């Protein structure tokens, strides 16, 4: 047995490595499933607080990590306002004053229009694949679907805000149905719940996302995809300052 110990250790290491890769693959598949190579969507976002709520409707286009464009449809006050992201740069179009304003890249990590989502949450950078190590920690059943429970721990040098993320990803169709975001002290900060699974132009996805801050009762933000189509051809030139003003 002693003789075989190194071999056994090697086997253990290898299986741990394989499993880590698997978990990473699963997360990547789930994120890719929701993002696609490109997408075009119409979204309603409802900010809910104890005593009041506000609703924002918008149209969004994205291509990979690099490009996204958002046009506000409602409320009336903000209709026509647009946001363009190309790489790390972000611009904002204010139609009432006919001006393009360059926005700070740091706003990507901050609240999106007063909601519980950050800009990064909406763009869903590949960071959750790249900047974390992944491990399957169990199984669970959510909304009648068998799920992997996967733990994401940030790599040492990764510049990320979370200390830990736990994701529930369905085994059959790679849907991210729930995620818990923990800070560096291990305290639960946000819960993301995905539901209302629908077929959107041939792709099965949850069209309702809720972001619920753990320590603020009565508070959440609900995003509903009224329509979303993936992997449509969008040329890079679509994501321009000219089109930010024009696109409808």
């Amino acid at each position, binding site marked *: 047995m002693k003789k075989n110990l190194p071999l056994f250790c090697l086997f253990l290491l290898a299986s741990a490595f394989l499993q880590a890769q698997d978990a990473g693959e699963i997360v990547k598949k789930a994120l890719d499933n929701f993002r696609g190579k490109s997408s075009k969507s*119409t979204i309603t976002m409802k*900010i809910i*607080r104890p005593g*009041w709520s*506000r*609703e924002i409707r918008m*149209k969004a286009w994205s291509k990979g990590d690099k490009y996204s464009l958002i046009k506000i*449809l*409602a*409320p*009336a*006050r903000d*209709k026509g306002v647009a946001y363009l992201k*190309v790489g*790390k*740069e972000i*611009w904002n179009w204010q139609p*009432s*004053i*006919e*001006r393009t304003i*360059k926005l*700070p*890249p*740091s*706003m990507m*990590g*901050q*609240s999106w*229009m*007063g*909601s519980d989502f950050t800009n990064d949450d909406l763009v869903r950078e590949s960071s959750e694949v790249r900047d974390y190590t992944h491990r399957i920690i169990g199984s669970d059943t959510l909304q009648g679907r068998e799920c992997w429970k996967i733990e994401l721990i940030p790599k040492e040098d990764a510049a990320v805000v979370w200390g830990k993320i736990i994701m529930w990803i369905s085994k059959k169709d790679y849907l991210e149905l729930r995620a818990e975001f923990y800070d560096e002290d291990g305290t639960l900060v946000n819960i993301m719940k995905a539901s209302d699974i629908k077929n959107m132009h041939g792709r099965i996805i949850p069209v309702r996302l809720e972001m619920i801050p753990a320590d603020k009762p009565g508070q959440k933000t609900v995003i509903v995809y009224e329509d979303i189509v993936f992997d449509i051809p969008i040329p*890079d*030139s679509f*994501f*321009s*300052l*000219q089109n930010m003003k*024009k696109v*409808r």
Partner: protein
Amino acid sequence: MKNVIRLLVLLLLPFSSLRAQDSSLSKWSFGGYVKDLRSIAISSGNGSDMVVGNQIHNRLNIRFEADSNWTFALELRNRLFYGESIKASPDPLAFIDYNDYFDLSTVWLKKPYAIGHSVVDRAYIDYHRGNFEARIGRQRINWGISSFWNPNDLFNAFNFLDWDYEERQGSDAIRLQYYSGFASHVELAARMSRSLDSSVVAALWRFNHWNFDWQLLAGIARGDMALGAGWTGYIGPVGLNGEAAYFHPYRNFPDSSGSLSLTAGLSYLFPSNLYINYAFLYSSPGKNDFTGVSPLRFMDISAKKLSPFKYNMILQGMFPATPLININAGLLYSPGSNAFIFFPGITFSLSDNMDFDLLGQFMTLKLNGLNINQEIIYTRLKWSF
């Protein structure tokens, strides 16, 4: 003119019902707002005086996108002024009525206690094909980059204290634009005018390099040759922006002296969403000649003369206390005239389409041994549709 406006309103009102369809790709779009603005102005110097002002303000924005190339836009504002501020002013229309080359305004009510005024401040045809765009008619040509002062805004310089009219007056102009990249374009614009000395003809080149947006411009503006440059971008979390423009009368060029408008600013967005903005302005024609007779909000400014003071600096903070409440406060200081302007404000979102603002503009300065104080408090209720 009166009849033209009436006709336009009658013609366009029925289209408001089209909005009910709410198809985002409807050819017609219709929007605007109704605002109720009230002010209390207290000025002191020669005796204290308190004047209450009232204004009901409606804006209509109408667009017709005929196809992917042609767009027609018409925007007008209808305002009813009433109360003491109208009675107290010797010539209230001086602050109310304005036009460009064409007369597109009308005074539909003129009483000692009330004035009704309508003006079309946008009326243009836009044609665009590929990377090219042409726009003719009354339009806003906004070349400004900075938050408070815009030396590059040759066509329609913005007075940041005139907070209730962010759309600004339009210029009757022709504008050609060519987009050469995702964040770069060249444009040529000419404002119609009865004489060369009052017209503006200029070209602008905007481009993106080192993650900054840059612009260069050259042209003639109201009797001057103008050269300008602007920049905006971020180094780490710190925002840097600025604009400069040099003006020199083109008649008697060697015998005249030029003037310089230069502004530069820094901004920082804290993780708490507190946004801090600092800027200074050097305005070489500034003579510290502000008399304090009219509110600073109505001060006539241009890219060449953006402030009555030569040296100006502003520090402003903005903070979304909750998604419903935005708090901001700014302080302007001009060392030459020892002028301070403090402008705090708070905006409440009452519903998806209703906002309430409460803000103040408090000014104190000392000129030639004379103390001038102006204190104005505004309330505004705004319903957008």
